[in-house]
């Protein structure tokens, strides 16, 4: 008997059943975690430099506004309105900086460790190597940043409080700045504002040191 030229196709029932069985068996095994790898770490130094620069600008604008208010008695409505707007702008523009300072205080060393991890995860291998080699130097810079952030944060509260009190006094009496009590308030508020500005300047300088340290690695390539 001649073998059939058209052999009966092999049944695919068994492999299909196995496949369905495996699918059903593993249906509950989906991972809870996102499948994609975590994205590149953010550029902490660059971001913090920008936030600090915004805050320094807002503090200095407000200090100049304070000088204008105290220089004119009675204070013209245009000047006091501008003063009120500058205070509000300062509160909003310093928001991120204050949030960062709060986080640095809350996390302490863990904040630096992650900061350093991000530096050590940079794409550029030279920069990565440099970040690891300069760990101690970066730690010193971070400690200075942390201390200055706390100093600026501590001075910010009385600075804002003084600004609010002065703004409210000027709304009620445009000549309020003439009284001794208000002159004293202006002086202490200015001092606190200068402390905030000094703290922020010191942070900015330290961040520049960090950026320069890492830049040197790039230049030496």
């Amino acid at each position, binding site marked *: 008997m001649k073998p059939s030229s058209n052999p009966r196709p092999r049944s695919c029932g068994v492999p299909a059943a196995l496949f369905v069985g495996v699918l059903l068996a593993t249906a509950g095994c989906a991972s*809870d*975690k*996102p*499948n*994609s790898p*975590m*994205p590149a*770490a*953010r550029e*902490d130094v660059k971001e913090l430099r920008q936030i600090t620069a915004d805050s320094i600008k807002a503090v200095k604008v407000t200090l100049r506004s304070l000088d204008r208010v105290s220089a004119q008695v009675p204070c013209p409505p245009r000047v006091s309105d501008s003063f009120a707007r500058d205070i*509000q702008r300062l*509160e*909003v523009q310093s*928001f*991120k900086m*204050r*949030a*960062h*300072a*709060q*986080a640095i205080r*809350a*996390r302490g060393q*863990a*904040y630096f460790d*992650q*900061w350093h991890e991000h530096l050590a995860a940079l794409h550029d291998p030279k920069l990565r190597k440099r970040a690891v080699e300069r760990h101690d130097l970066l730690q010193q810079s971070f400690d200075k940043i942390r201390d200055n952030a706390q100093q600026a944060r501590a001075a910010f*509260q009385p600075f*804002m*409080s003084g600004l*609010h*009190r002065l703004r*409210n006094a000027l*709304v009620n009496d445009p000549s309020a700045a003439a009284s001794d009590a208000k002159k004293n308030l202006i002086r202490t508020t200015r001092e606190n504002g200068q402390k905030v500005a000094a703290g922020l300047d010191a942070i900015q300088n330290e961040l520049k040191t960090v950026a320069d340290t890492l830049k040197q690695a790039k230049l030496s390539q």
Partner: protein
Amino acid sequence: MRSNPRVVLLPATVAALVCVAVLGSGMLRAQPWPYAPPPPMAAPSNPMAQRSALQSVQSQVSWFQNSTRAASSYQTGAYGTVWQQFQILRGAYNAFTGTLTSQQLSQGGNELAELQGGLDVLQEAFTNYQQEVADGESSASALNDMCQVLYQASGVWLQELNSVSNRLRVGWQ
């Protein structure tokens, strides 16, 4: 010769009992003894739960901002309403962080602490309001100042939340 039915049934019964004992012990093993209380409910950290929790925070920021906008029109209880909306926002944010995986919590430790710090900074505005009112400032004026700052600052906070969530791939499949 007829076989005794009892003689035939006895081995079959014994075999059936042995089978039930063997199979049953395997099934019963799934139930621990003594029955332990169920573990505390942990928030699910699957992408859908994360998306839902994130949307809840985003919506709550909108509600909070609406309350700061509408506060001046309230005859009474404006401060309490804004405060209550803020506390709901804090709660929504805490629930959101509860849905993050350990990897996301670890990777975004600083950023999440900054978001938490941002909420603390927002809360300071309420303290400032109380201080101003205690200093003799009219409550309407102090409330207006507080609400304007809270409205704008919460907008900044929301941008940060979105940026951090995107970076941590919250709700990604």
